[in-house]
């Protein structure tokens, strides 16, 4: 304490956003699959996409305290937009991402006016309801979405006209990872910004915010829109790399899974969603190899244990241990 009190407030705030060596190690490690696990690049790509999706949920849940059980709505909108864009406009993927992000942001912004008015259980039910609504809408609009058969005819051009999305998933993983990393940088900047501080203020004490002159609702509308756009990009990447969109992209299960990933990893820590997504997806891959019908059982066991033993998720637990260790 005596040491930290010596630094200036500005230096202190600056230090909050400094890169930790572990962070650099983490991002270097994300390159390992290219060399070490070439047979798992498709899985790695799925993990990167899930991580991006979980990161977008972390922005609203972990930072602003907005609980959503319908976040797949934006993932699905992004996936369908990117899929339809490639089918009816062209197959260039970067522009596809931008259009998907814009579409998801638009729907996110529209729904944010409802979201920002409620908290807690009401909010969970509203997001759940909106998610189910969209799922059913996509299901019944079979002429556009392909309904339960999924969207067919998605054709993506090679990335930058050079790298084909092959069966091994090399391009897919490189692409997903690059998108994840860039949006992670954006999210990292956001949480270290004045706006990020305001979000933490909302999470810590929603009631106090108006008393310091803050409009929590305006902040929530903004972050909800940003998170929707990010989830939309995640959906777009999955549509582009798998060259198909299934109704599952909008399902309740996807909303629930991403919440489980975030809680496993630890909400409100940026890396929680990333770690959670990796653990969840690898566990699903391994467990479904053992017993295809029962893999959710093991995810359930994992979730219960983590929540009971480590209330702030795996990262929360690790940082707690690290803090104890350095104190000794």
């Amino acid at each position: 304490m005596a040491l930290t009190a010596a630094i200036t407030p500005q230096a202190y705030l600056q230090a909050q956003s400094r890169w930790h060596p572990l962070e650099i190690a983490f991002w270097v490690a994300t390159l390992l699959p290219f060399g070490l696990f070439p047979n798992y690049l498709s899985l790695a790509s799925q993990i990167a996409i899930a991580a991006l999706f979980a990161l977008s949920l972390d922005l609203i849940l972990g930072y602003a305290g907005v609980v959503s059980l319908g976040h797949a709505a934006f993932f699905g909108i992004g996936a369908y937009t990117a899929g339809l864009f490639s089918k009816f406009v062209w197959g260039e993927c970067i522009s596809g991402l931008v259009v998907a992000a814009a579409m998801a942001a638009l729907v996110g912004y529209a729904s944010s006016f409802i979201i920002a008015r409620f908290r807690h259980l009401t909010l969970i039910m509203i997001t759940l309801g909106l998610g189910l609504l969209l799922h059913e809408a996509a299901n019944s609009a079979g002429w556009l979405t392909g309904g339960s058969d999924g969207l067919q005819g998605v054709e993506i051009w090679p990335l930058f006209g050079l790298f084909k999305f092959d069966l091994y998933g090399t391009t897919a993983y490189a692409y997903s990872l690059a998108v994840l990393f860039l949006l992670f940088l954006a999210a990292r900047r956001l949480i270290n910004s004045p706006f990020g501080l305001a979000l933490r203020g909302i999470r810590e004490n929603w009631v106090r915010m108006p008393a310091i002159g803050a409009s929590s609702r305006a902040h929530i509308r903004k972050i909800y829109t940003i998170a929707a756009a990010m989830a939309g990009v995640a959906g777009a990447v999955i549509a582009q790399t798998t060259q198909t969109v299934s109704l599952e992209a909008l399902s309740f299960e996807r909303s629930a899974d991403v919440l489980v990933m975030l809680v496993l990893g630890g909400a409100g820590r940026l890396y929680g969603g990333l770690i959670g997504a990796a653990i969840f997806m690898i566990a699903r891959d391994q467990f479904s190899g053992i017993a295809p019908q029962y893999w959710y059982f093991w995810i359930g066991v994992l979730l219960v244990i983590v929540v009971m033993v480590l209330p702030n998720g795996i990262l929360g637990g690790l940082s707690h241990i690290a803090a104890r260790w350095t104190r000794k």
Partner: protein
Amino acid sequence: MSTPTLPAKDAISDRAIALATRALSKSFGSLAVARNVELNLPVGARYALIGPNGAGKTTLINLMTGMLAPNTGKIFLDGDDITALEPQQRVRRGLTRTFQINTLFAGLNPLEAVMLAVAERRGIADKFWQNIAVHKEAIEEAYDILVKLRLGDCCYQVTRELPYGRQRLLEIALALATRPKVLLLDEPAAGVPQEESGDIFEAVAGLSDELTLLFIEHDMHVVFRFASHIIVLVGGMVFTEGSPAEIAADPGVREVYLGKRKHG
């Protein structure tokens, strides 16, 4: 405006009114918690709001700051009708309050919390593309407020781990960060040991003379020491008001307090 530190009642009566209420009433069902309240706080006032438990003191602050909507009546800030404004809009116009029970950001440290309030006031709280550390002036302003309230040495310590007295000071620091013209303090020293409550009121007394202050307090020593004018609220109504000397001599006030001894 030149203002003496403790202006007498006559001196301030012809000064501009910072905050006023007109025929303010509120009831919860059949229970009237504010009845026809008419207050005038002149610019630079140091007013105390006293009254037995359940007199409606906190309710009155809730009404004035917009946390509760009145059934009837109006509230004026600098002569403007603010009755219909949202709490945060009133804060931006310069009407700020503190809370009797700490209502802080437990997981933020004092620097972050005050910085947040400063950022909101400066209109930079929605900048999501800039690192917070680039806002030098805002950071310095936040730190100056903390130092003024003797929180400079613990400003990196998370709020929930601060001693209670420090948390009470942080309540005031958060309010000051909004640069209020009128500050309503709801028992600023509540729950603080008596020997420390002096510190809090010293900090309050050291605030700018231009700041208009109304505080709720139960400790009569503190009230008589720091208030230039006292408003006595009983059963949601203004029972009487006057200078400390007048209130001290008022037999009616004594009766109210002796009749209902439970306060604190």
